[in-house]
C-alpha cells in the first residue's frame, strides 16, 4: 500500500539490524540458529597457571557474541603477565587478573556480558552450585587438584561440557569432555556427499516422469536428446540393463560395463563431438548407481540406548521415529535436493518438485510417528524436517567414559607406529607431549626427573622412550611459561571446537588435540 506508506512520517527504513551486519561474515557459516545458541551461552573460565590460553580462547568467543562469560582466577597481575597477555596493560598491575581481563575483553563486544572474580582459596564451590548457570566450563592447567575435581564433579552431575587447556613453551593441548552422549544433527556435510538420487529404488512418480522423457529416446531431435537430465538417462538405461540381466549392476565390473553402455548411447555427431548431459550421466554412474548403505555413524545412533534423562529429548524422539522409518522402508527419509544438471529449466524444475514432494511425504510419515510419542506433540515440524534432511549425516559423540582406552594402551600403540615411522623418516607421534604436559597438571615448574616419575606413576613402562624423554626435557625447560603465540593459536583451535559444541553444528574433535609448535603439527587422540 504505497499510498498508506507515503502518509507515514517519517519513513524509518531499516534494513538488516546492526547486529546482523556486525555478525554477517559468521552468520554465513552457522546461521541465525547457531548465532542464537551462542548468544544464549554462558561460559565459565577457571583461569590458572600463567593464564593466557584461557583468555585467548575467550576472546574468540566474545568476538562472535556469546551471551556471557565469567572468569575466576586466583592471581593478581604481575609484570610477567604484561609480556604475554594482550588483555592486560600497565594500569592493571597488582589488580586481580580476572577483573582486569574481564574489563578489556568486554571492550571487544558491548553485546557480551562478563564478570571476573578473584578466586579465594577453596572458593570455587561457591560458584559451582546452581546448575543452570553455565553452558560450558573452560579451565586451564596447571590447576590445583581440589579445584579440578570440583569442576569434574560439577560437569558430570549437571551434564555440562568441560574443556581443559594446557599451554607451555612450544607445546599445548586441549581436551573436550562431553557429558554422556552428544548428538549433532546439523553436521554440515560436504554438499557433494549429500546427493541421494534413489536411482535403484525410484518411486512411481519419478519412474513415470523419467520414462516420459526417454520414451522415444533414439528419435528425439538433437536439442531434446542433449537436454534429457542425466537422472532420466540413467534410469532409462538401468531399466534396459535390468531387463537384460535380471538385476541392476552391482559390482564394480558391472557398473563399468554399464557406464560403457551409457557412453555408447551418447550422440557424437554434435558440433562438440558429444553431449554434456550424457557426460554428466557417465560421470555419475559409479557414485549414484548404488543403494545407499546405512552410514556407520547413523547406525550408532540407531543402536544407542540413551540415558533415561535424555530419552525424551527431541533428538532421541525423532531419532527413534527415523529408525522406525528405516526399519519399514529400508532407506532413510529422502533429503530431496537435486544437483545442478544439464536440462531445460522447466524439466529441471519439474524434477526438483518430484524429489521435493517425495521428501515432504517422508517427513510427514516421520512426523506422524513422532506425534505418537507422549512428548512428541510439542516438537516443531521444522525440526523433524531438518533431521530428515540430514538423516544420513547425524552424528553421536560419546563422552570419554564410553569405551575407554587407557593411556598406556594409546602410548604403546603410538610408540609402535613411531618405530615404523622412524624407518621412513615419518613424523613422530605427539602423544608424548600429552603425557609430559599431563604430568605437570598441578605444578608448573618441575624437573625432568620429577616429570618422568610422574608419568611413570600413572603409565608404567613408557618412560624409557627416547622421544618422550626429549619432550619432557623441553617441558621442563619451559617451566610452565606460556608463549603468547602458541597460546593464541591453541586458543583459536579450542574456541573453534567450543563454537561447534555450543551451536551443535559441525562435528567437534573427539576429544584431545595435541599441538607441537616446533613442527606446526596437531594430532587428535581419544583419551
Amino acid at each position, binding site marked *: *500500500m*504505497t*499510498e*498508506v*506508506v507515503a502518509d507515514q512520517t517519517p519513513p524509518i*527504513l*531499516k*534494513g*538488516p539490524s546492526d547486529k546482523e*551486519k*556486525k*555478525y*554477517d*561474515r*559468521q552468520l*554465513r*557459516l552457522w546461521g*541465525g540458529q547457531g548465532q542464537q545458541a551462542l548468544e544464549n551461552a554462558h561460559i565459565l573460565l577457571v583461569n590458572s597457571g600463567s593464564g593466557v590460553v584461557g583468555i585467548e580462547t575467550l*576472546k*574468540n568467543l566474545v*568476538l*562472535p557474541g556469546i551471551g556471557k562469560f565469567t572468569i575466576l582466577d586466583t592471581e593478581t597481575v604481575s*609484570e*610477567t603477565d604484561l*609480556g604475554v597477555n*594482550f588483555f592486560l*596493560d600497565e594500569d592493571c598491575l597488582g589488580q586481580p587478573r580476572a577483573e582486569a581481563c574481564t574489563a578489556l575483553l568486554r*571492550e571487544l*563486544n*558491548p553485546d557480551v556480558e562478563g564478570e571476573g572474580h578473584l578466586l579465594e582459596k577453596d572458593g570455587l564451590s561457591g560458584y559451582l552450585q546452581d546448575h543452570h548457570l553455565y553452558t560450558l566450563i573452560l579451565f586451564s592447567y596447571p590447576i590445583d587438584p581440589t579445584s579440578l575435581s570440583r569442576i569434574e564433579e560439577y560437569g558430570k552431575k549437571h551434564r555440562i561440557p568441560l574443556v581443559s587447556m594446557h599451554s607451555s*613453551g612450544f607445546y599445548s593441548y586441549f581436551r573436550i569432555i562431553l557429558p554422556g552422549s552428544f548428538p549433532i544433527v546439523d553436521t554440515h556435510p560436504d554438499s557433494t556427499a549429500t546427493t541421494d538420487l534413489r536411482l535403484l529404488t525410484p518411486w512411481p512418480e519419478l519412474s513415470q516422469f523419467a520414462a516420459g522423457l526417454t520414451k522415444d529416446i533414439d528419435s528425439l531431435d538433437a*536439442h531434446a536428446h542433449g*537436454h534429457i537430465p542425466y537422472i532420466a538417462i540413467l534410469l532409462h538405461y538401468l531399466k534396459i540393463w535390468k531387463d537384460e540381466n535380471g538385476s541392476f549392476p552391482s559390482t564394480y565390473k558391472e557398473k563399468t560395463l554399464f557406464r560403457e553402455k551409457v557412453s555408447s548411447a551418447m550422440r557424437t555427431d554434435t558440433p562438440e563431438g558429444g553431449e554434456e548431459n550424457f557426460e554428466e550421466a557417465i560421470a555419475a554412474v559409479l557414485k549414484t548407481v548404488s543403494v545407499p548403505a546405512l552410514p556407520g555413524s547413523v547406525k550408532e545412533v540407531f543402536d544407542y540406548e540413551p540415558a533415561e534423562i535424555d530419552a525424551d529429548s527431541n533428538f532421541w524422539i525423532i531419532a527413534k521415529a527415523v529408525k522406525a522409518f528405516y526399519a519399514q522402508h529400508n532407506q532413510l527419509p529422502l533429503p530431496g535436493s537435486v544437483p*545442478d544438471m544439464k536440462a*531445460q*529449466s*522447466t524439466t529441471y524444475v519439474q524434477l526438483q518438485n518430484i524429489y521435493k514432494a517425495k521428501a515432504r511425504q517422508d517427513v510427514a510419515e516421520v512426523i506422524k510417528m513422532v506425534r505418537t510419542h507422549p512428548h512428541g506433540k510439542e516438537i516443531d515440524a521444522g525440526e523433524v524436517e531438518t533431521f530428515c534432511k540430514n538423516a544420513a549425516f547425524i552424528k553421536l559423540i560419546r563422552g570419554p567414559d564410553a569405551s575407554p582406552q587407557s593411556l598406556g594402551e594409546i602410548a604403546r600403540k603410538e610408540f609402535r607406529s613411531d618405530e615404523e615411522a622412524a624407518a621412513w623418516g*615419518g*613424523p613422530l607421534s605427539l602423544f608424548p607431549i600429552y603425557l609430559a604436559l599431563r604430568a605437570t597438571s598441578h605444578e608448573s615448574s618441575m624437573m625432568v626427573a620429577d616429570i618422568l616419575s610422574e608419568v611413570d606413576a600413572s603409565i608404567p613402562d613408557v618412560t624409557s622412550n627416547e622421544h618422550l624423554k626429549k619432550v619432557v626435557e623441553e617441558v621442563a*625447560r*619451559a617451566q610452565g*611459561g606460556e*608463549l*603468547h*603465540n602458541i597460546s*593464541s*593459536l591453541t586458543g*583459536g*583451535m579450542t*574456541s*573453534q571446537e567450543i563454537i561447534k559444541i555450543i551451536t551443535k553444528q*559441525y*562435528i567437534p*574433535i573427539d576429544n584431545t588435540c595435541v*599441538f607441537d609448535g616446533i*613442527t*606446526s*603439527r*596437531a594430532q*587428535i587422540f581419544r583419551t
Partner: protein
Amino acid sequence: MPRDYSNHKSLGLPLNTMVKEARILMVGAGGIGCELLKNLVLTGFGEIHIVDLDTIDLSNLNRQFLFRHEHIKKSKALVAKEAAHQFNPKVKLEAHHANIKDSEFNVDWFKGFTMVFNALDNLEARRHVNKMCLAADVPLIESGTTGFNGQVQVIKKGVTACYDCSVKETPKTFPVCTIRSTPSQPIHCIVWGKSYLLSEIFGTSEDESKEMDHSEDSENAMEIEKLRQESQALKKIKEAMGTSEFPQLLFDKVYKDDIVRLRSMEDMWKTRRPPEALDYATVLKTAEESALVKEDVIKDGQRIWNLEENLLVFKDSLERLSARLQAEKEKAAATADSAEPVITFDKDDEDTLDFVAASSNLRSLIFGIECKSRFDIKQMAGNIIPAIATTNAIVAGLCVLESFKVLKGEYLNTKEIFLSPFAPERLLNPDRMRRPNPDCPVCSVAQTRVLVDMTRATLNDLVEDFLRMELGYGEEFSVSNEAGLLYDPDETDNLSKKLSELGIEGDSFLTVIDDNDTNPRVNLVLNIQESKSPLDDIPIKALDLRPKVDLDADFSLSPIPRRPSKPKDEVEPVDITNGNGNGHDNSTPTATNGNGTVVENKTSSLKRQAVENLGGPEKRAKNAAKASADDDVILVDDDGSILID
C-alpha cells in the same frame, strides 16, 4: 621477572635476539592482520610497518579485535598501530594508510625489511607483494582464510615455490549476451542488476565491463548492436530521475519494452523458455491491494520476496538512490567540482543492495529463474567470504611459527600448512615446502635492476645496446610492460622514442621474452631505476648482473639463464610427509557464491602469463585492486564469484 622472560627461555637467546632486531612489514590489517600484529608485538619483534588502504566497517568487528565501534570509517592501519602500541610501547610501529601498489613502496623499500607478512584479502595485491618480494629477495609469509579453512606458506626466492607457481583461479566473467539477453541462473540476473542497471542509472556505465565479456563474434554482433541501442534509450530515461514518473518509466523500459523486444526474437526462444514482460501499473495495483507495508518487507532480508514486494523495494530504493544522487549533484555544482557524482555498488550500502536485490529478482521472475533473498544476494553480489576470529587466530599463530624458521634461514624446514577443520584425526595439515615451479612465469625469471638515464635513454638503447650487445640477445625477442607490447621484431615504431615518452617510469617493470627457437633464455624482468644525475657514458646500466663477459667466445655465457629443456626430469615428488600425499585436498575451500558455477582454470601460454603477472594488461590495471585486508582469503578467493571492489 622481565616481560620477555618466556620468550627468552623458550626461543633461546640467539633467536630471541633475531626477533628483537627484525624489521617486519605486514601488508593488511584486517582479520589475520589484527591477530598477527598482536602476536608479533608480544613475541617481541622490534619494528613493524603496517600498510592497509582500507577503512573499518561494522562487519569487521566480529573478528578484527583491535577495532571498536567508534573506529568505523577510520584507517585500519592507523587504528591497529595505536591499539598495538598501547600493549608494548617498546616496539617501533609505523602505519601507512595507503595502497601497497603505490610507487613509494618500491623494490628498494621492500629490501629494507627482514621479512614480509601478507595478510591480504585479494589476489591482485597478493600477486603484487609476491612479485615485489621476489624482486627485492625478501622472504614472504603468505596466508589466507575462508570460513574455517586457511593456509600459510613461506616464499623465498629460488628456494620455495612462490605465490604464482601454481595457477590461481581467475574471477568469473559472463558473456554479455547471457547477462543482457539470455540469463538462466540467479547470478546472471544479479550481475545484470549490479553491473548493468545500477551502473547505467547511477554510475558511469563503464564499470559494467569488469564482469561482462563484450567480445563480439559474427553470431552475436547483431544482438550486441541492439543492446547498445537499448542502453542509449536508457540514458534518455535517466533524465527523468527525481520526477515521480521515474520509477514507472524505468520499470516499463527494462521489464516491459526491452523484454517484449527480446521476446520478438523468436530464434532465441526455440530452446529456452521465453521471458514474460511485467507491467508497472498492474503489479503496483496488486501490491496496493495486498496491503503490503514497505518497511516490513525491507526489514525482512532473509525471506525471498514475491513479485509485489520486489516492486515496492525496487521503487523505494530507486527513490532513495535518486535523491542521494540529486543531492550529490547539487553539492558538486555548488563547489564547482567537475567530477560527475556517481553511486557504485557497495555490499554494505543498503540503498544499492536493496536496489540490486529487487531489480535482479524482478528479472529472475521474468525469465522463470529462482529468486534469492537479499541476504543471499548480498553474498553473491558482494563476493562475501565468511570470516571468523578462530580461523584467523590459528593462521596468524602459524605464520609466526614459520617466521622463526625464516629468521634462522631454515627455508627447507618451512611448511605449507593447510587447516583441515573437518578432518577428525588432525586439525592441521602441514606439507613440506614446495620447490619453485621451473615454469613459473613470475619467479622462474631472471631479474635485474637497471640504472637508466631517463633524460635520454631510448627504446633502441635498451633493445640494441643493452639487450643485444650487453646481454647477448639475438633477433627474436620482445619487450613489454603492463600497458602492453613495446617492441618485437615486427613492432619497431617505438625504437627511436625515449623511454619516458613511452610512459616508462622509475620503479616500473619491463619484461623481456626471448623468442629464440633454440635454447631460449628465461624471461627477464627489468626493474627500472631512474638515475639521479645524467649518466656520462651509456644511458642504461645493469645493477645486479655480473660484468660483461666475452660473449663472442661462448655464446651460451649470457648472464641470463636458459629455460630448462623439456620434458623436465625435476618433477617434485608428491609430498608424503603426512602419509596421505594429498594434503591440499582436505582443505580445498568450496566456492562461496552459491550458484554452482564451475570455474575453469585458464591456463594461458607462458608468454601471456608473464605479461599478465607483471601487473597485467589494460583491464587489470584499470581495476587496480585494493591492498586491503578486509576478509582474509585463500587460494580461491575470487573463485567463481564476481568481482567487487
